[in-house]
């Protein structure tokens, strides 16, 4: 059960919130309106100079290679043997008489680029980018079950409530744009731990992910009704229909003053501190988010590149990828997209995996092209990963089962070695054998790319220093550019 402590979330509260608390104590101690006015002034000054909010940009431990992350989350466990981890031995017909449950990949593979990486025929677009990609073929995680693996991928632990990868990143780096949430997740799944996958656990609540989502009409009905999307904005309540912006600002000042007054009496109340932060952020978001979410200013060629258009299989993920690029450009620190089609191919893998690729391959490739063309790929880390891979053995004759012992993820840009294939699984793809990379190692490496030392990025909660990688994790230096 995901459970943000409801009161007293940090014994180090005083260290976390020094400026605000001293500010409140000195400013609002019973001098009526004047006290509030000076408080408001100080608050305004604080907002004007980035650097005094919890979300302020933080110095990194060492120079960062990546400034932001776009995490393409492939929910369900994509089959590495059918996508990027070519296994000739799997394709061979088993020796006569030998009983084998191995299932050859139903797809053809070919080598691409100067790096000569093998890619399956179902990813023709990503295949064109292999020279920018660093494949890790030797990933492994602890449990071959969706909910545990999914949450471990996001938080490092499937047993305990821990902050998510995005929350840690934002905590470590702060935001580049105080008018937007620093951590956004688009269409996250409601299961597999739900909000825990973008939650902040014991970190201050302001670091948790903001969920943005639109509802798509399913394919069958979209064709029938000739509508592929519901009416309505992707993020509701972005404008007050009754009050002018000036009146709303005045109102917000009152809300903040009343909250501060209450906080002063409570001495320590993270819920109220969080509320103060989130109302200010909300006000600024009203300004920036609508423009950001509106793709209508994108040229037709850009929409085509991403595969955006009514009835196209790529439309949904294309929109998400383009949105991710726009958010990256606007300074969102951590952007997570969840594949709108799942990858849990226990049955009918040949058809279903093809469908998943058709929906995502072109948009992902477009994102890489687009970032590169804008010069953003250098400092944007793009991650493509599912919670685990699949077995070389067949399941139900037409699909594959979960495999946590060896699978492939890839990263591009943001300081990883381009055109590299790192680590291997055994001849059939069952298990990582050479240079295995555990989830903890991957987390350590990801933080390292962001300029953060996973052993130093700690948060003291109830007397103990916690980190994303707990007591584990090795930075995979071999893949750093």
């Amino acid at each position, binding site marked *: 059960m995901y459970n943000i402590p409801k009161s007293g979330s940090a014994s180090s509260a005083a260290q976390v919130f020094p400026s605000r608390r001293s500010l409140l104590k000195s400013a609002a101690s019973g001098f009526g*309106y004047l006290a509030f006015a000076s408080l408001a002034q100080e608050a305004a000054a604080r907002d004007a100079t980035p650097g005094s909010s919890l979300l302020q940009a933080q110095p990194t431990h060492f120079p960062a290679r990546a400034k932001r992350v776009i995490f393409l989350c492939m929910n369900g466990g994509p089959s590495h043997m059918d996508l990027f981890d070519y296994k000739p031995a799997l394709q061979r017909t088993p020796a006569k008489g030998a009983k084998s449950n191995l299932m050859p990949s139903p797809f053809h593979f070919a080598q691409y680029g100067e790096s000569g990486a093998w890619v399956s025929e179902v990813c023709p677009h990503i295949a064109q980018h292999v020279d920018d990609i660093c494949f890790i073929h030797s990933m492994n995680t602890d449990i071959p079950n969706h909910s545990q693996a999914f949450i471990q991928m996001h938080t490092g632990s499937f047993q305990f409530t821990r902050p998510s990868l995005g929350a840690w990143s934002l905590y470590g780096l702060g935001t580049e744009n105080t008018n937007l949430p620093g951590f956004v997740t688009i269409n996250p799944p409601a299961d597999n731990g739900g909000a825990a996958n973008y939650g902040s656990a014991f970190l201050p609540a302001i670091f948790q992910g903001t969920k943005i989502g639109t509802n798509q009409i399913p394919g069958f009905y979209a064709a029938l009704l000739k509508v592929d999307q519901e009416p309505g904005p992707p993020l509701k309540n972005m404008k007050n229909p009754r009050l002018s912006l000036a009146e709303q600002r005045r109102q917000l000042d009152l809300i903040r003053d009343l909250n501060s007054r209450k906080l002063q009496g409570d001495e320590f109340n993270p819920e109220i501190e969080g509320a103060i932060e989130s109302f200010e952020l909300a006000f600024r978001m009203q300004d920036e988010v609508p423009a950001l979410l509106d793709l209508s200013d994108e040229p037709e060629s850009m929409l085509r590149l991403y595969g955006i258009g009514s009835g196209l299989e790529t439309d949904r993920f294309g929109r998400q990828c383009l949105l991710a690029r726009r958010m990256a450009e606007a300074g969102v620190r951590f952007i997570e997209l969840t594949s709108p089609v799942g990858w849990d191919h226990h049955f009918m893998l040949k058809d279903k995996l093809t469908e998943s690729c058709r929906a995502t391959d072109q948009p992902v490739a477009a994102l890489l092209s687009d970032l590169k063309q804008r010069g953003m790929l250098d400092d944007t880390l793009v991650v493509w990963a599912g919670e685990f891979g699949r077995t070389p053995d067949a399941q139900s004759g037409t699909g594959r089962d979960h495999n946590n012992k060896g699978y492939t993820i890839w990263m591009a840009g943001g300081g990883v070695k381009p055109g590299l294939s790192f680590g291997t699984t055994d001849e059939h793809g069952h298990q990582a054998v050479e240079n295995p990379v555990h989830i903890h190692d991957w987390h350590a490496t990801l933080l390292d790319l962001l300029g953060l030392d996973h052993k130093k990025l700690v948060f003291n909660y109830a007397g103990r220093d916690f980190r994303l990688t707990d007591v584990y994790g090795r930075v995979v230096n071999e893949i750093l550019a």
Partner: protein
Amino acid sequence: MNLFRPFHYSVLVLLALFVSTSSGIEPGESPAEIAFFETKIRPVLVEHCYECHSTQTGAAEGSLELDTRQSTRQGGDRGPAVVAGDPQSSWLWLVMSHEDSDLRMPPKRERLPDTVLADFKKWIERGAVDPRTEAPMAKEPAWVKAGQDFWAYQRPTESAPPHVTDDAWPTKPLDYFVLANLEEKGLVPSGDAQPQTLLRRLRFDLVGLPPSDADLKRFQQRIDDEGLDSALALEVDEMLASSEFGERWGRHWLDVARFAESSGTEANISFPYAWRYRDYVIDCFNDDVPFDRFLVEQIAGDLLPYEDDADRARLLIATGFLALGPKNLDSVDQRQFQADVIDEQIDTVTRAIVAGSVACARCHDHKFDPYSMTDYYALAGIFASSKTFFGTSVSPANRIGGDPLLLPKVNGQHVLHASLPKSRVETLKTQLAQLRAEKAEMDEATMMMFSGKKPAKEVTLRDALRIFWQTGSVEGELEKVSDTGEALPLAMGVLDGDEIVSAPLLQRGDINKPSTPIPRAVPHVIRIHDAIEMPEEQSGRLQLAQWLADPEHPLTSRVIVNRVWHHMFGTGIVATVDNFGSTGERPTHPELLDTLAAKFVQDGWSIKRLVREIALSRTYRQSSTYGDDAFHLDPDNRLLWRASKRRLEAECIRDAMLAVSGELDLDRPVGSLVGKVIGDRPISLIGLDKRLPADLDGCVHRSVYLPVIRDRLPDVLDLFDFAEPKLVTGDRETTNVPIQALYLLNSPFVLDRATSFAARLNRECDTNEKRIRQAFLLCYNREPDQVEMERSVQFLGDEILGEKNAAYEAAAGATTDAVPTALLSFCQALLCTAEFRNLD
């Protein structure tokens, strides 16, 4: 989805090794021979054979068990597995070496390496020395044994209140336990909260609503007249007696029961009759139906005796508990669908009632808790012998269909769907007959095609789909009405099936790999009495329910008492309210939990009495004042040195807005938006229905009556951390994000409340000072202090120039509810403040 998880192999291997090390050595067997067995033979048996042939896994394919010397020699259906000295007579050798063309082991895998085969041959030739003389703890794997010693499986026993130094502090027995713990740590409890703070806390905790101005005055009067203890008791008793109590506490159970009005998952089809179960739960909490009885009704209401039709209808509706779960109605495989429904039922029943999931044992023995696959399939048989009714019909988004459960007709019963004219029924019946004829024709044609003959009529996939969908739709219409077209009272629920069966153990949970049928039973780690007999002619749900509700069940009472504690204090005595297993947290006050549980049972399983006991305790009465020392020692307040500050749940936030604006309608609405407007259809399409409000709200009834649609909750519920209705949720999350702020600042719902709130202030007060004072009383249940008053007065007097209320002036003549912009803005600001949605 629960599917095969390979890790169970390694767990089994470890356990098997661990369990059997204690076996004896036969005289005459040299240590070298035994070493050979231990290093070369046993590991192979464990890794490749035990899964299907061992006592521990409960699997004995071909009646063969290979985990003892005796059973190995004795062999299975084909004969001895090992004949010492004679590999060619040993079936084990024959099947391993693939010498027998008909049976090769391990199944569906390549032959074991030649070195391994050579070892086995050598072993058998040299006499097959085997030190495994006894079955390893027959039928009782080590982890089950360990589990039986685990705290949560021991029967709770009552303890006398411990000694405390400050014996003037406690008002209730539970206070002694809390205080003793605090004193031991050198802490002192916080003082009593201010009366208005206390009343606010009590009102939200017990009935989910803020106190009114009159409530506050009455309470103060009672304190003045009779003292705090007596005043509190009066207030608490009145709240427990009000119908708002059931709406608040029923909702807690609905969280646990993963109540929802749609199927969720990919298809997500609405459940038009789910609301009956919601009302049933609320009524049960109001009537204080004993909790044990409440459980039995929900699991086996259909099997209980009844007094009259109304009673029968109520008991049938109760079984909706089992039918409400998420369902993959888009499933292509009816058997898989059935297995998933049963799995969900097992998971919900066990997680909700005993805070542990047996469902993990669908594919492998439980990794952490003492539930085996045998336990799982023994339960599965009970549900497989039942039929689940959920009332959706076949459509392009729903391949499964799903019958509704017909209720007896009762006076005053609401039926939300319309009756049909008799002529329409006739037309539908004719259509159905035609469709069935077409189907028969098509089936015949298909058969012809398969046998290579030219069919009389060409069959296309299009035709097949059309017939399937049209049939589904016509059947769906017909099952809702009588022969004369009268709308029938329908519900969701469960009845016993046509056949009483034992579910086969499915290897790795795969429906295509059935093995031994497992007789129906309850999980055997918890032994209350002697074996429970499963009846031949009933599903066994009643026996399961009675086992769960047994006064001596070690978990049921603890789990519900802990849930109640959690709602009263913000955190349970066991913080992981839905997990009392080995991965859950241990109780902070074990003796207290046990004593409360034991008393709860003695007291007739009364939720109201338990709530009262806690509400009138000194522990509950504490203030939430911060204390440096205590905070550093116990930042999460697990020792209860103060009242925990808590964010209100979504429903309370919304209901409080309606209460302060004066608009709240406390009457129960008939049915729900789903039953009345949406009906049975894909949720993915409701966004196109202009009759539905965009926020799925648009009413002024209590929030418990808002539609609960999986993956499509009303905005206010979705944003403020409503319980995920796909899962048993005893502990909601609390998040604090900008989109909540945006909802409060900009949503039509909040603006409408602020407008009505402002109009109310204008109606009730004639000066700004009075309006401000009244607003603070309504929103925070306290007077503004001087600072707040000055700030508010300044705000109301300092309207933005030019905006001086265009809306007000324009509308002034038209409606009495028109309000100045500044007042509207002020009222909304109060609804937005943290204090409004938090408890001290």
